């Protein structure tokens, strides 16, 4: 055998294997092939991609109060915030509104807010702000308008954070884990100033309106509205006081001391919004001769002239995904599981049609229950379904009572005088569009009156503002000549009552009782809450009875939520007082 021949073959073989291995074993074989994924550079290279990131900012920044899904919206589990304050209650014990009513809120679970989610929105808005200049196909003026838009989008979650937690760390850049990022909380004052500054800067650039197909985007009015509300909150007793609800952590819970001029700033900001609205075609809904119809349209019509901003995160909701229906609708109506009961305490804040207070005796015949209900003002008729009332044309009259056999006609009590009907009447089994109202004009008349009464007690402009609301509601005006309203305190109470009624269930009351520091009062978030229950008698008639359905528990530390324990454990934040 020829040795050389063999060797050549041998080396050739070895060489080939090694060669093939080297060729093949390089990074290219394992390189991720191009696919349908996107990079940040691709996002900010075309208008359509950049806009997708703007919509992402909307998706993550806009507050939502409806329980569209299991925990998907950033709110209570399977219930609405109205059921976690003195407006209402849900009978079933598992929705997380009950945690608030029993004081069962902890540093690890509020059952309500998703702290992290707000910062996701804040980050998205910041990414957009920092990168939009790279998109050459968008004109400069449009880019600056978009920047103003996300500036407000970013301020919205800060407002949601601050009204729950007090001061939080203000993050204005896009952070990575390599950064030195253990930042402490800013002070409450810095937080308010930051939002106000964002609103001022954006208001100077934002348009009054968008083309119809783009309604729902941030306008100048949103910037003014946010500023007005934030200043109202900042001027309120929880934050603007010499006697804070708890001693420690003052820089996080509010200002160092009381300053009346903060009320003036709030009043001015509301005035600015009201002035802008008059010029921008934003006005209360008053077309119909029927006040109930007007009030309903202001709430349920998705693009009515009173809306400054509503969240359209869910679009057209339908029965393929029925959680909203099951969580929100009263038991037995369109698949509702339990419904949100309206407490007697809240019902009593409504006026009668003639502007008086309604008194329900502790018990009486069913006919009295119904007639007293029917005497109530139009806003009550729309907002509350009582037994014997009409849900809508399709469902008709609804009755709920305890049967002669000792069971509840709809399997469970209501926990209140009736069910929340507001928002929901237009729905049916097929679905509907339920935009969550973030700002509507009526709020700012109330904000204006409330703040003005603090710097200028019984100011006629404040009465005007309240009466604008009452006129639309179809109830008699208030007057400082009326001995019931002729002191600052009495008028303050009237303003608060008007606010509770007009803005009922819209996620105001929960925060109002906190910023007014009244949550610990009996009948607010403390003590027995009542309902009116109807009992079927042996002869088929009914008796009603005022009965407590639960005893609520309050602890002053609940005025601000605890910062989630997981964040505290990272060692960079100070906890709120009492937690």
């Amino acid at each position, binding site marked *: 055998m020829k040795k050389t021949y063999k*060797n050549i073959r041998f080396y050739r073989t070895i060489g080939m294997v090694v060669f093939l291995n080297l060729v093949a074993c390089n990074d290219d074989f394992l390189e991720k092939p191009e696919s349908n994924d996107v990079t940040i550079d691709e996002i900010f290279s075309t208008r359509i991609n950049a806009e997708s990131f703007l919509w992402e900012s909307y998706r993550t920044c806009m507050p939502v109060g409806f329980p569209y899904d299991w925990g998907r919206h950033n709110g209570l589990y399977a219930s609405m915030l109205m059921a976690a304050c003195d407006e209402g209650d849900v009978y079933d014990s598992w929705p997380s509104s009950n945690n608030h009513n029993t004081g069962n809120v902890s540093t690890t679970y509020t059952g309500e807010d998703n702290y992290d989610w707000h910062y996701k929105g804040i980050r998205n808005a*910041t990414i957009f702000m920092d990168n939009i200049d790279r998109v050459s196909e968008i004109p400069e003026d449009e880019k600056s308008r978009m920047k103003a838009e996300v500036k407000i989008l970013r301020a919205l979650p800060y407002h949601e954070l601050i009204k729950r937690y007090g001061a939080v760390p203000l993050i204005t850049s896009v952070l990575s884990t390599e950064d030195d*990022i253990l930042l402490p909380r800013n002070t409450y004052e810095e937080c308010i100033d930051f939002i106000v500054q964002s609103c001022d800067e954006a208001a100077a650039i934002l348009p009054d309106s968008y083309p119809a197909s783009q309604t729902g985007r941030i306008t100048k009015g949103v910037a003014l509205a946010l500023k007005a509300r934030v200043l109202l909150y900042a001027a309120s007793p929880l934050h603007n006081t010499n006697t804070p609800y708890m001693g420690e952590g003052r820089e996080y819970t509010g200002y160092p001391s009381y300053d009346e001029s903060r009320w003036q700033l709030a009043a001015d900001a509301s005035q600015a919004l009201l002035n802008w609205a008059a010029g921008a075609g934003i006005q209360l809904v008053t077309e119909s001769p029927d006040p109930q119809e007007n009030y309903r349209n202001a709430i349920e019509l998705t693009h009515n002239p009173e809306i400054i901003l509503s969240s359209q995160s869910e679009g057209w909701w339908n029965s393929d995904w029925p959680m909203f229906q099951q969580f929100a609708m009263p038991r037995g109506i369109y698949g509702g599981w339990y419904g949100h009961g309206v407490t007697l305490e809240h019902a009593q804040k409504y006026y009668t049609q003639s502007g008086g207070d309604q008194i329900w005796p502790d018990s009486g015949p069913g006919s009295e229950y119904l007639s007293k209900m029917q005497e109530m003002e139009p806003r009550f008729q729309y907002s509350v379904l009582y037994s014997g009332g009409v849900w809508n044309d399709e469902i008709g009259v609804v009755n709920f009572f305890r049967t002669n056999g000792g069971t509840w006609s709809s399997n469970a009590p209501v926990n209140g005088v009736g069910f929340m009907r507001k928002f929901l009447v237009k729905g049916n089994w097929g679905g509907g569009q339920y935009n969550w109202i973030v700002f509507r004009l009526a709020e700012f008349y109330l904000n204006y009156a409330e703040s003005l009464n603090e710097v200028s007690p019984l100011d006629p402009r404040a009465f005007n503002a309240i009466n604008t609301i009452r006129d639309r509601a179809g109830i008699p005006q208030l007057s400082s000549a009326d001995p019931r309203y002729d002191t600052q305190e009495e008028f303050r109470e009237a303003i608060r009552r008007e606010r509770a009624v007009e803005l009922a269930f819209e996620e105001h009351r929960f925060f109002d009782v906190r910023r007014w520091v009244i949550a610990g009062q009996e009948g607010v978030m403390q003590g027995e809450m009542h309902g009116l229950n109807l009992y079927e008698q042996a002869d088929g008639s009914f008796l009603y009875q005022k009965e407590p359905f639960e005893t609520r528990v309050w602890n002053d530390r609940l005025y601000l939520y605890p910062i989630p324990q997981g964040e505290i454990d990272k060692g960079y934040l100070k906890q709120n007082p009492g937690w």
Partner: protein
Amino acid sequence: MKKSNEMKQILPTHIKFNLFAILLFCCLYATGWAQSAEEKVIVTYEDATEDEKSIPVAFGTQKKEEITSAISTIGGQEMSKTLAPTLSNTLFGRLPGLTVMQGSGEPGYDSPSMLIRGKGTYNNNNFLVFVDGFEASFDQLSVDEIESISVLKDAAALALYGIRAANGAILVTTKRGSIGKTRISLSARTGWQQPTELPEFLGAYDYSRLYNEALQNDGLPARYSDEALAAYQDGSDPFLHPDVDWYDEVLRESAPISDYSLTFSGGSETARYFVLLGHMSNQGLYDNTDPDQKINSNADFKRYNFRSNIDLQLSPVVDASLDFGGRIEDRFFPNFNGAQLWENMAGYPANAYPVRNPDGTWGGNSIYPDNPVASILDRGYTSSHDRNVMATLRLSEKLDFIAQGLRFRQAISVNSWHRGNYNKTKGYSFQELVRGASADGRDSLIYVEQGIDTDFEVNEGGNDQFNRFNIQMALEYGKQFDKHGISALVMYHQDVLDVSGNNVPFANQSIMGRVNYNYNARYYAEFGYAYSGSESFPKGKRFGFFPSLSAAWIVSKEDFLKNSKTLTFLKTRASAGLVGNDRLVGNRFAYTQDYNYSGGYYFGPDVAWSGAIEEGTLANPNITWEKSLKYNLGIEGSLFSKLDFVVDLFFEKRTDVLASANATVPAYVGVDAPFENVGKVNNRGFEVSLTYRDQIGEFGYFINASAFYARNEIKEMNEVVRAEDYLYRTGEAIGQPFGLEAIGFYQQNDFDSNGDLVPGVPVSAFSPVRPGDIRYKDVNGDGLIDDNDEMAIGDPWEPSLTYSFNLGGSYKGFDLELFFQGAANRDVYLNGTYFWAFVDDNNAGTNILNRWTPDNPVSASYPALTTQPNENNYRRSTFWSQSGGFLRLRNIEVGYTLPEQWVSKLGISKTRIFVSGVNLFTWHNVDAVDPENLGGYPVLRSYSLGGRIQF
């Protein structure tokens, strides 16, 4: 230089991307070349049957004696003693080091979960499975095509799998033909399956009576009147007061299972073959289903297996083999989620409603909306049809003319699977019965219709498939130089897996090999290595080098033991090495920042959808694989040539385990923090196996006992800060349960006259408590029972100790074998439908009969009844934990081999008939349920008989 030019001409540059062409070229190149060498080299063909003592190792085989690593092996013969449609269900306790944990018994979906040497990581513990050298699942192969299954356990055994090897590997080898006359084997087995056990629930009377008691405890009025209770008790009103045992209504006594196979094997010097045709059929437990599967169907699984393994000698130096393994799997199910069905059968109380109303309509109501019988019979069915083909072509050339003992091998393998669906579904209506009064004042029935009867709707489709394409090339060398034996292997392997539903295929690639040396067949050493890469890592950081070293010493060959009659064999082994795990958590390409089209927003009155792009978890540009340093010490031997023993000790240190940085990165970063390679886990344990064999006259018997232990400890995992030291998961085993320690019940004297807890008694933060609720230990002594009192309780679900006993004997034609398998050091958490009475309108089990009442305050085994949610009672605690240890008679078989003189006249060489049973007995302490499967489709026991005829 000339040579390299030549190479370039032969290999055009683009060919490196065309892997198939490379391989084809290599084959042709080598074949042609071999033919040219034909005249010069004379090769003697080695008979493959001499490899009987060989056992599979990574990409090859080695003689048992020369193995330096930790491997356990089982033959197909032993596996076939357990009649199970899914092969891994024959492996319980059979392979020391492999923990097999019972899954559901649902036909077609009864795979157990398995671990090799316990858990080495708190992330993904999946291991590799190879069938004849290429990755493929083996569960649905026919047992009669299995030659052996091996488990590779230590670094030396796994070294060649490099970056993917850390969780171990299973090698499945299929049967091949051997030289000789054609052997035909026909095997048939048929049997019946039943649940090992089903939980027991209260009858209607007890349920109603105790529901009333629960309501009374809640201060609520009774639901059932005395007349109703009487009706439940005497069964006088089966429609308005039904007493339904849902298991009885839905299930039949037993379900058939059968398995048939026909194999041919044989061959000559130049061609050998093994051919199999197999059929397995397994039905479900549901009763009264349509046998023709036209309007509904039982759970039903049918499988057809085909295999043709052909070995060819193309020339004296070129061998080829073509393996073709295929199967068809047909699955039918009622159109109702199986897990939910079993949940409903358990969760619906006996008095919910009658199965059918007096007029023949389905019973039902809105609280229990899915009548379990109607769910099976009146909703149509769903079905799937799977086709799987795995084909492998191998070529091997002897290059003795270059260097004696040199061999070049190439292989390509394709594995293709597709699933098609055919669903024929409908809806049904049911009628809720309500008592009404007729004109004459007597009771009458009112029917309230709910749901809608719909016509059948047919749906087909789905794009469920995968395709796998593998290439291997290897050079092997082996030669004996006097007393020095040397062998070496270097190979290249690449793998591309295309799975529907993934944007891009999965890929990995390696060069690997080993060098073996032995001196005098007494001292063995092996160096194994892999330079392997994974697509999961960033460019430049994709490849790692994974070496291992191992050695063995056959002590019994030394002079001082050579003639020992006592210690007839003794071998010690040791190995150490590094392997990796590239299975990541989180995003697949975690080194790139991920943005997804996800969600969106609406604008305008027309709710115009505006799609959004979402930023995903932050990228980790430095992400890398888990590293596993494995050490193994082994000793094996034989006493008196009768008692064989194998002992292995192992220790594993896993580092660079991914952990989310969420625990340390502030939430205000605003996006999920990346996974970082910071985690550490240690894992250690042992395997012991003893076998004693003897023959007394015509009575032969054996006893085998084995035990396997593995215990891991999380050393680091970037855990969140916790309030108390005992709350940390770090330092505990993976999956360590945490919960409260129950210390009895709240008693009446714990409360004052207002119903408030007396001072000094810890308050539950979960919900208000009352007498008869579970009382917990206030571990941190803060007067409050809350999450901060949850400590490590019991053991994880996966047993740290498993053991088995195998006893067998034969006398003349008779043989008997019993196989027991058990597990210890595990706990089960008994929660949910089967155990928590009345929660969410749940049924009540017999476990509540011994509930707490004022008259039974101490010896009660269930808290005071309530119809309300009770966050205090219904949560993880020692109260709901039980020891999950068990011992099962996994298998028993009695066989009889007909005397040869009877059958040989028929041309039959061997006939054996047998009866066998699977899971006939289980000893355990868990209440009400099977210790391995707490809910859902139950674990099955089976009885079968069968026979095997060989021609």
